[in-house]
Each structure stands twice: as structure tokens, then as C-alpha cells.
């Protein structure tokens, strides 16, 4: 019994301790001119879906869930977001060369087609980020048309 108490106490101390480790928050008030929505003429439906399903990890502004302030959840999020932005940052769309836009669109399309994006670990918590069959088709159609117009 005593052992359990001590273990519980140690856990508590560690849990409280790690709350003081600082994290970088991915938040920005400004939407740069190079943003995907500003550079392209994106239909409203697609815009909304992009914001909800993609922009949290693929832009400079994340709509954080409440648990983001609690460690170790915050670390996992930070890591995800960093990786996501390295791969594709919709805020910087206008700065990509046409060649890269083409590559990015190709990947966007195939990732959505294969249900690889949005990530399962993300939609597990963000139910609204899931793409329905119709939404997938709409998104792919738009991205394909954009790719062909490059």
C-alpha cells in the first residue's frame, strides 16, 4: 500500500514538473499575402474544410485544443505541427515555385485519395476534421483543377 502511494506521488511530481517546460506555440494574428486562400480563388466549401482539416498543422496558426497547455500532450502537438509545416505551409503557398506547387498538389491529392491525410491521430480527436466521401471528391477536384491550371 505504501509503495503505491509513493509511486503515485512520484508520478504527480513528474507530471507537475514537466508543466514548466516551455513550448513554442504556433499562433499568428497575420495571414500573409502568400496564403493559399489569398493567392487562389478557393470556393467557400473548400476554404472551410481546409481551415478545419488542414490548417492546424499546415499553417502558421493553430486553433489549439484545451489540452494543448498540458504536458506531455503539448509536446506531441508541437512535434506534429513542426513536421506538418516543414512539409507544406499553406500560408507560404505564394512563395513556392510553380514546380513545387505542382509537387505539393500532387501530394495533397494522393494523400487525400489514400485517406492518409488528415492523420487518423488528428481526426480521432477532431471529429469535424474528417473528410466525408463528398468532401474528398470536392477537395480532390479543386486541387486537380488548380494543378492543371499551373
Amino acid at each position, binding site marked *: 500500500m*505504501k*509503495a503505491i502511494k*509513493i*509511486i503515485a*506521488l*512520484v*508520478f504527480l511530481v*513528474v507530471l507537475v514538473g*514537466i508543466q514548466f517546460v516551455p513550448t513554442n506555440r504556433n499562433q499568428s494574428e497575420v495571414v500573409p499575402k502568400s496564403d493559399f486562400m489569398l493567392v487562389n480563388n478557393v470556393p467557400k466549401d473548400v476554404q472551410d474544410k481546409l481551415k478545419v482539416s488542414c490548417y492546424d498543422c499546415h499553417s502558421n496558426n493553430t486553433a489549439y485544443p484545451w489540452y494543448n497547455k498540458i504536458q*506531455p500532450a503539448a*509536446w*506531441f502537438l508541437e*512535434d506534429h505541427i513542426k*513536421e506538418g509545416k516543414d512539409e507544406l505551409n499553406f500560408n507560404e503557398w505564394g512563395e513556392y*515555385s*510553380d*514546380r*513545387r506547387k*505542382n*509537387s505539393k498538389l*500532387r*501530394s495533397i491529392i*494522393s494523400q487525400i485519395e489514400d485517406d492518409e491525410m488528415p492523420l487518423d491521430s488528428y481526426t480521432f480527436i477532431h471529429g469535424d476534421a474528417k473528410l466525408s466521401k463528398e468532401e474528398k471528391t470536392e477537395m480532390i477536384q479543386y486541387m486537380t483543377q488548380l494543378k492543371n491550371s499551373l
Partner: protein
Amino acid sequence: MKTVKVSLGVMAMAFAVISTSCKNNEKNSNTTIEDAATERAVPMEENRMESSNAAQTDASLTTYLELKNALVNDDQEAAAKAGEKMVGQLKTFKTENYEQDDQQELQDIIEDATEHAEHIAESPIGHQREHFDILSKDMIDLIDIVGTSQKLYQAYCPMYNNNKGAQWLSVTKEIKNPYYGSKMMDCGEVQREIN
């Protein structure tokens, strides 16, 4: 005494979990860079002219062809290695000696190709092939600007990517399809000869 041991163990475990989950990524990227550097130091078999422009394309072209052969053989591991090697080679590509317009185009090509090579270095074979498709386009465009001393064949498989088709470069006329490998080895045709 036992309780102290137990609680120490728990603490150590908690920290281990936390620290590994954070550091994993950094470690990975470090080794990639180091490995690429060692690969680069290995001299190539071809007679090289370090300073000439075509030589720097020939280095990445040789690796591209290694990558192509790996995909023909359905060898994910060898393809990943070639991708990693290519990242290093593309990073050292110098564009200063070209005309202004070409420089911009070359930088775009290199930047794009590097990204695809990076993905090839760490993806399952299906993804490797997707990236190889675009990388092939980059290589073809690169060679159009820079040129090469090698005799090459530009081949085309009309079926890949939902019948959108995909190209690749090869040193032989004979079709060996890197997009399907053993599944459909001879699908494709030669589109043009380079040199």
C-alpha cells in the same frame, strides 16, 4: 528500500519516455546528414571533372539511375539509400555558372528534387514510386538545361498514376519499368534519345 527502488524506476521510465519522444526526430535527421556526407566522400568510378558543369549532373544522374534500378527490382531499401545519397549530391549543386534565367529554374528544380529524394529516403515503396515520378520530371528538365555526357533514353509508361502516365530515364533502350517492377516489367516505350 524496495519502495524507493520502485519509485526510482517509475521516475526513470517516465523521463525516458518523455526524452525519447522528443529527441527521436532530431537524432534521425542528424544521422541522415552525416551519412550523406560520407557517401559523398566516396569517389565515383566514372572519370570525373570536378569543376565542369556536366560532372555535377552526372553525379546525381548516376545516383538517380541507381534509384531507378532499385525500383525496377522492387528493392525499397536500396531505393531509400539512393534517395539519401542523392539529397547530399543535390545540395552541393552549383548554379552560379549559368545564365540568370537558368539559375532560377535550376534552383527550383534542385529544391523540388531534393524534397522528393528526401521522401524516397524514408518512405515505403509505393510512395517512393510516386516521388520518383516527379523526380524523373525534375531530372529530365535538369538535363535539358545542364546537359550530360551520358547516352540516355527517356521512357514512358502510360498506365502509372491512374493512366496519367509517367516518365523515367534509363541508359538502355530495353524497357524495365521502375513504376511497376516485377508486376509489369515491360510496360512502356522509349519516347526520345538524349545524346
